[in-house]
């Protein structure tokens, strides 16, 4: 079973949070510090789940989401955000355009990260 998780976030602390929360429990965590790198990694490694930050330098989260959809349309994506109003419109538009994604509210504790990951990859629909 594919246990590769990709986290795309420009903040190393956030990337570390996913690494520390998931690597202990048997997941392989890939990290990318910007959108372009994230899309490239996704294309190369074909992860089972992607955590995506919305606000990033360069390609922003919503644009990255569209690219990811092109590269690996079947991989579920979780937007990890503090719900800044700036991106909500674009996100809503993306949803209307047929892109599917989940939303998790920052900051996430280890337990929350694991719970989301488990529920997406293994368990029934919990969230």
């Amino acid at each position: 079973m594919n246990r590769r998780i990709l986290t795309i976030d420009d903040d190393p602390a956030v990337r570390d949070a996913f690494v520390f929360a998931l690597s202990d429990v048997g997941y392989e965590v890939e990290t990318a510090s910007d959108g372009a790198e994230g899309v490239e990694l996704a294309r190369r490694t074909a992860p089972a789940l992607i955590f995506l930050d919305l606000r990033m330098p360069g390609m922003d989260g919503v644009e990255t989401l569209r690219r990811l959809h092109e590269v690996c349309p079947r991989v579920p994506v979780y937007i990890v955000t503090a719900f800044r109003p700036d991106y909500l419109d674009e996100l809503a538009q993306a949803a209307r355009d047929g892109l599917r994604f989940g939303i998790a509210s920052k900051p996430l504790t280890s337990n929350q990260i694991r719970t989301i990951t488990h529920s997406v990859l293994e368990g029934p629909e919990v969230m």
Partner: protein
Amino acid sequence: MPMGKHGKYHPPMPSADAAPRVQRDRCALPRHVQATAERLLAFGTWMWAPGSGCMEWSDGLYVLLGYRPGTVAPDYQIFVTAFHPEDRPRLLVQLEACLDSGAPVSFSGRLSHAGRVQRVRVAAEASRPSGRHLRCVQGAVQRAGLPEDIIAAAADAVFAFDRDTRLTLWNPAAGRLMHRTAQQVIGRRVAEAFPSLAGSRAGRCCHRVLAGQGCHARGVRIVERAAGLNGYFDVDFTPLNGPTGEVTGGIGLVREVTAQRRAQARLRLGARQSCSLVEHGPDIVMRFDRRLRCLYANRPLVPAEHAAKDIPPTTLHPDAGRSLWYRIMQRVLATGAPASVELFVPTPTGTRVFDTRMVAEPGEHGPVRSVLAVARDITEQKQAEEVIRQANRRLAATLGELRARQRQDVQTEKLTALGTLAAGIAHELNNPMMGVMNYVDYARRNLAAPETVQDVLTRAARELERIRDLLKNMLAFARPIDEPSGEFSLHSVIGAALDLMTHEFRARQIEVKLDLPFELPAVWAKEGHLQQVFVNLLMNARDALANAPRKEVSIRAIQEGTRVRVDVTDSGAGIPVAIRHRIFDPFFTTKPPGKGTGLGLSISRAIMLEQGGDLVYRDRPGGGTTLSVSIPAISSKEGESP
């Protein structure tokens, strides 16, 4: 002044070659001459008629007559009797010279009669200027310094005429008035001297006098340009009577009064105008004497029908600020300095206000005798001023409100900016927070450390959760700006807010009382924002009830005009009066440190103001705290097309 009369006369006189003979005896005086003479003497001038011989008056004046020798028997003589012997020769010489040359002569001499000597003056005039044909001398004897001089010096025109209306007297004033000298008029008939007067009133006057009636008129307008008369005159004509009462002539007195009359007219006009100014002027004018009694008032301060019965209408109203007004008048009397006072006079239709000025009126000789008071009714002006003052007060109040609102707006703006700032900071903190939380968690899980270190890490994780909660709270202020307003029911909003708090309330045994009438109108607002406000209020209520003996929260909604008001009340200890006015200040909190940000109420209020509503504190008699939210309601009409 020589007054003479050209008389009728006799046939030409022969040359004077015989020596004059003085008749020493009294000569007989014809009656009519004597009467005339006496009348004239009484008037101050003596006249004689030709052929009358010598005259003697009762008071001892004698008349001199002269005849050319040979013409009239006995012969040429001049009789000089009663003159002082020393004066007689001189007098005779003068009179003969007059006869010879025709030139007027004047002679002053002493006249003796009955042992009394008087100084008299004789004036004579020849009837014709050619000596040879002189036929007579007619003259007058005046008592020196007697009324003749007065007549001559009189300012009034004086003249006399005989039965034939021939002028026999004409003083200089008459000459000045009527532009004729004595020489031009004496001896002529009035009608000849003044043809234009023939049919005039003056002419008629002469005939009336000759008929024995006086003729007196004051201020007669006479325009007789030929006679030089144009103006107003006082005219007195008086008949002269002989000894038997018959009319022998008349005396006229004419005084021009044009200037006086005009001056009087001007005075009368001026007086009338002054009176009218005072009587009909807009102000009330009063005069008070030294004892402050009202001597005059053009009209009363208070209309008669309103004044007290026992007060004459010209006096002040008894309550008319008497003491003040009287004190001031007394000061004016004492010092002579003007003063003014605003007088309030009660009337049945309300108090009238008079601007009253007082000036001292000096007496004719010195000290102040009376006070003049001029009162102007300024009630309407005062009322207008009061209206303006009130308007000003209202304006000031409005201005104060505006300023307060402006301060409030500034406050709201500050809060909005603060919200944005807080949200920004919270967002920025989220990432490091997430990192630190997971680092600590990872360390706690994987560190084979003594129990104390594990305990410390657990505490660190707990503190981090507190920071996370705080950040979430702050993020609540980062409201999406573009949430649209919409129409919705308060039941659903309040229900949702309560749902969020149910667990908290149950855990703390807080009882909730809900009073939401079914027929509440829908409201127009941003639903998420409104929900946030209610959650804030419920959280505050929860915290306020932490140590309260009775734990109850009540939510009550009622419609108030175009708004719906929702009161959220807790049964806690309430907010002390001293800090009530601060509860909406940002960062003001009554909660212990770490329990509240102090932003909840200020943000909530800002949210309500933004949406045309409000959030206020309400006093509650029973204690506890009531915060009252008002929200614009939707009337049934508007509700159809929000």
